[in-house]
């Protein structure tokens, strides 16, 4: 068991090791997996959206259209009217995280189990949140926003700039790591039937929930920023 966990948690994440900066510039395996996910998603998008028609639409087109409207409704509903312009980005993030979380079903290590990917995602989120606030309020009002509701808590508000993305990336990373570790342990203890049943929960359900939570919190922050 210990070897298993060691193998899972302490394995070398580097796909290409660059002998400079003490591993800071390595290309990790998780990035390669995201390339695979991206490739699959590109092919899927290009296949599903080819020869769209205005009338007499195919079932494929109807499904794609209703999916797009549905996922926009989900993210748009969380963002509110003022920040509705960011709904497409958040929909893409939702699809990306959900696909990353569920790729464990196909035998890959989920990229979201790597801190690097979740750090990148939460960096993008906090940049988007602050950019949305800046765009909406302007520089002066945005700075003043740190002293609200009262100037005393300004340090807290500044700290939030770091705390929010940290919590976002740690939550996603921890959940997916935990789910994967538990799945590995179950596979080790009871290799028949149980892994298949429980992977429905840990891979599909938990993966979708974590993707939703990430997008939900990001849109909450954006909504707060543009108010």
């Amino acid at each position, binding site marked *: 068991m210990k070897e298993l966990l060691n193998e899972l948690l*302490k394995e070398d994440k580097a796909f290409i090791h660059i002998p400079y900066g003490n591993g800071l510039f390595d290309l990790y395996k998780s990035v390669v997996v995201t390339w695979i996910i991206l490739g699959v998603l590109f092919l899927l998008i290009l296949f599903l959206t080819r020869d769209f028609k205005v009338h007499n639409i195919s079932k494929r087109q109807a499904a794609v259209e209703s999916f797009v409207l549905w996922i*926009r409704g989900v993210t748009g509903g969380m963002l509110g009217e003022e920040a509705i312009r960011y709904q497409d980005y958040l*929909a*893409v993030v939702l699809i990306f995280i959900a696909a990353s979380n569920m790729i464990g079903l196909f035998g890959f290590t989920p990229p979201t189990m790597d801190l690097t990917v979740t750090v990148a995602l939460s960096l*993008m989120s906090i940049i988007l949140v602050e950019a949305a606030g800046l765009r909406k309020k302007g520089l002066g009002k945005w700075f003043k926003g740190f002293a609200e509701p009262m100037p005393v808590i300004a340090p807290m508000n500044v700290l939030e700039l770091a705390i929010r993305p940290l919590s976002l990336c740690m939550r996603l990373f921890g959940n997916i790591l935990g789910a994967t570790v538990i799945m590995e342990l179950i596979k080790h203890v009871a290799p028949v039937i149980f892994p298949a049943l429980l992977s429905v929960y840990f891979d599909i359900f938990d993966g979708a929930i974590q993707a939703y939570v990430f997008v939900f919190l990001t849109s909450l922050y954006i909504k707060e920023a543009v108010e």
Partner: protein
Amino acid sequence: MLNISILSIGCTIFNLLLLFFVAKKFLFGRVDAVIAKRMEEVDDATRSADEAAHKALTTQVEYENKIAEIDAQKETIISDIKKQGYVEYERIVSDAKKKGEQIIMEARHNAEVENERAKEVYAAQLTDMVIDAASKIAATKHSSEDDMKLYDKFIVEAGVNNE
């Protein structure tokens, strides 16, 4: 486990942005284009329907005006015809009157002529009778007695003829 790599973070951000732009262009863009086109068609249909309704209304008003005009024309024509009819009636009646008067006059004239003719015939008969009587008187020798008888006979004869 917790070590991170700047290059990998950069690559992930790049991947995410790439996915976003591809999805924006192909997935959302294509769906939006179709929906926009559909919306445009609906707008067009609504606009043309509005136009058609407006046109129909205009045409209706036009027709109503025309019908009113025609009604007015009809009234004029009927009154004209009525007037003409009265004139014709008057003419016919007056013609008939004239004719009737003429007929009456002619009848009167004919009656007078007949009367005259009858009178003449009667006078001629009287003359014949007088001549007859005179010749009878002349032919027979007569006394005053005979004369008296003759007078009586003449009177009786004249009375019979006159009846």
